[in-house]
């Protein structure tokens, strides 16, 4: 991941995601996973029976999908802010943990979040990516899209506003 020319190392990314999982245990409740390719973060929601909302269709629970989208947006913003901090690039030693104080300087708070449900969520894996529309010093606006079989046919689109922590 890179921002304004700064490059986030793999070690830095891994350390941040580890710290994020401790801070947000709900990531593990949902079973979410992340993959980064350069500056692109993709979140995965592996299928689990506990994610089902309507067992008769079956279809994923709308609240689980919303949490998936919101956490994808939060993680994307956190990584963006983290990459802008000193010591997150190639000079960060592998295995160096991200401390809670460092994480709190990067993790935003959700102000509001809106979900548009476009299609049923099927009982299989889903992926999501967040697009940062604008990230200022205090406020960020993010659009998140989630898909399953076809990335050009998202089953949900979401938009959120977030309060960035004081730098």
């Amino acid at each position: 991941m890179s921002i304004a020319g700064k490059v986030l190392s793999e070690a830095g990314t891994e350390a941040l995601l580890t710290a994020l999982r401790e801070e947000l245990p709900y990531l593990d409740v949902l079973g979410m996973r992340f993959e980064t390719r350069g500056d692109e973060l993709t979140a995965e929601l592996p299928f689990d029976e506990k994610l089902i909302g309507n067992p008769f269709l079956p279809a994923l629970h709308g609240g689980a999908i919303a949490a998936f989208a919101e956490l994808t947006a939060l993680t994307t913003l956190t990584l963006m802010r983290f990459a802008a901090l000193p010591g997150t690039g190639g000079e960060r030693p592998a295995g160096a943990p991200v401390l809670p104080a460092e994480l709190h300087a990067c993790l935003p708070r959700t102000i509001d979040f809106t979900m548009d449900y476009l299609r049923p969520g099927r009982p299989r894996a889903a992926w999501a990516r967040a697009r940062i529309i604008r990230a200022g010093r205090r406020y960020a606006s993010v659009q998140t899209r989630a898909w399953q079989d076809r990335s050009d046919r998202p089953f949900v689109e979401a938009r959120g506003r977030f309060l960035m922590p004081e730098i």
Partner: protein
Amino acid sequence: MTSQSDTPPAAGPHSEPAPALLPGATPEEVLSYARAFVAAIPHARALGFRLDEIGGGRAVVSMPWAARMVGDASRTGVHGSAIVALLDTCCGAAVVSHPAAGRVTATIDLRIDYLRPARSEQRLIARAELTHLTDKVAFLRAHVESEGAPGRPLATATGAFTVDGRRAASSNTGDFGALS
């Protein structure tokens, strides 16, 4: 609320029709029946949701405070994501509780405003009510509060849910379709 389809499914090959309550069911029987349906929703069961009240376009669903839902380890604060599912389930229950709204529902859109983090380890209580109902769409408002602090909601929400107008003739008995 939990599933989305282009046309809300009626009782048919894609949904299991719920048995109609016997005419004259008491409110306790209605609640017991609706509770069983909420408990049959896998995600609701996984998060420990409990249906507390339902009827006439309103519903109350609560969940225990649990460490795994807490977003901020340094203080008791429920991360927003954990209460979205609670709001979604509660809104869906409110829709199907209305006599004219039909057996099943799905979320069209849902907006949540996060007002404040939870400051205690009390149960989280979601309350939803219909504000307007057409033959195709139900509009709702809802909020989540910590038990014991009703005047300080953690989050407010507005939502639009699908309505299945094809309701069994026994709608006045308060039968509840799959609370999906």
